[in-house]
């Protein structure tokens, strides 16, 4: 199955976002993407399960986490 990583603007927001998602019942873990995996160079992100993508994006937006994109790997 493909992986879903919601990229955010900083490592700090990745940690904050992962914790907010976990508290909201959405399993999430911090990850780091290399330049070859993104269009923006190295970036931090939060990996979630593909079915949780929509809910995760809504939750992060409500929390004021600056989302920069969604990367699908695999």
């Amino acid at each position, binding site marked *: 199955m493909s992986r879903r990583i919601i990229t955010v*603007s*900083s*490592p*700090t*927001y*990745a*940690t*904050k976002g992962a*914790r907010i998602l976990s508290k909201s019942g959405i399993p999430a*873990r*911090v*990850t*780091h*993407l290399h*330049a070859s995996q993104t269009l*923006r*160079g*190295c*970036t*931090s992100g939060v990996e979630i399960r593909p079915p949780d993508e929509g809910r995760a994006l809504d939750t992060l937006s409500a929390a004021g986490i*600056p989302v920069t994109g969604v990367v699908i790997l695999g």
Partner: protein
Amino acid sequence: MIYFDNAATTFPKPPAVTEEMVRCMREYGGNAGRSGHVLAVRAAEAIYDCRAELAAFFGITKPENVVFTANTTGALNLVIGGLARYGDHFLISDMEHNSVARPMAALREKGVITVGTFHAMAPEQEILRGIEKQITPYTKAVVAIHASNVCPAVLPIREIGALCRKHGILYVVDAAQSAGIYDIDVTRDHISALCVPGHKGLYGPQGSGAVIFADDFPFSMLAPTVFGGNGVRSEESDMGREPPESYEAGTLATPGIAGLCRGVRFLSSLGTEAVRQKERELYRHVREELCNMPDVRVFMPWAEEGSLILFTGKEKSGSAIAASLADRGICTRAGLHCAPSAHRVLGTGGDAVRVSFSVFNTLAETDRFLSALRAVLKE
């Protein structure tokens, strides 16, 4: 040994601080934000934990608004240097530590800013009038101590913060001597940026400090002052204006930050009121005894509480007294304490002894200090 130099740095630290620093270096000392491997992620988690602890302790809701520095001096330089633009006017008190006085002087000498001063050792309304009458359309910020590092003077930060908010100017607080001792709430007290040392009242290690920015701080006004790698948008040459990483170039002191987190938790479990109560007891006892010594001059003896007390000998210099006390295993600090303007205001002559307390000091230690001082004065 008796350690009464806690205004310089607190000693000892709670055991959990040292333990966590060692654990970090042994178990999870990766470079946060640079990779996705387990050590980097765990380091990032530890750093975020400290941001969250500091945010909660100082009354903001955004951990990302906590920017780590090496100390209060680094924090103040980050804010002052980042805010100052050509033609800006800043207001400082006449008792500032060199960590405010020197960057202000440097920017003024370059012709970038103008600086006005207000009298700190005055009744509250006079302090506020002294600030308000100097505010101009070009005033960017008030930058001032909360508590002096040489005497028990404390400024009314909530009232100054309200005044700054009323006039739409920023308020930067040097909390080097008050963080962890006084109840400071960045939001409630209308503080724009609170500059704190990790290694004094927060009982963290040396090499730790932070700026606690208000939730609504206008980061568009704050230019980065240190440039380098931060694990964010590496392909771009611009550091950006997004906290915290835009203001944290280079590798963070992860073990120090992990230790600081434990220090803040130690304080949170105690409460600042308990800290003040303990230090007040020590202060009052020492003040009473010093004021009864005919060969001693105490500065600000009317202050009913404080974390430190400043005195000099009528016959002996402060430096000579401090040296003799050190020979007896009692650690104090003499001289100007990096705050020459405060010494001028107090009229110390430039050389006085500062005795400063922590929660780990005891009344028994103060009695031993007083006995030693009596012996020194007789020499």
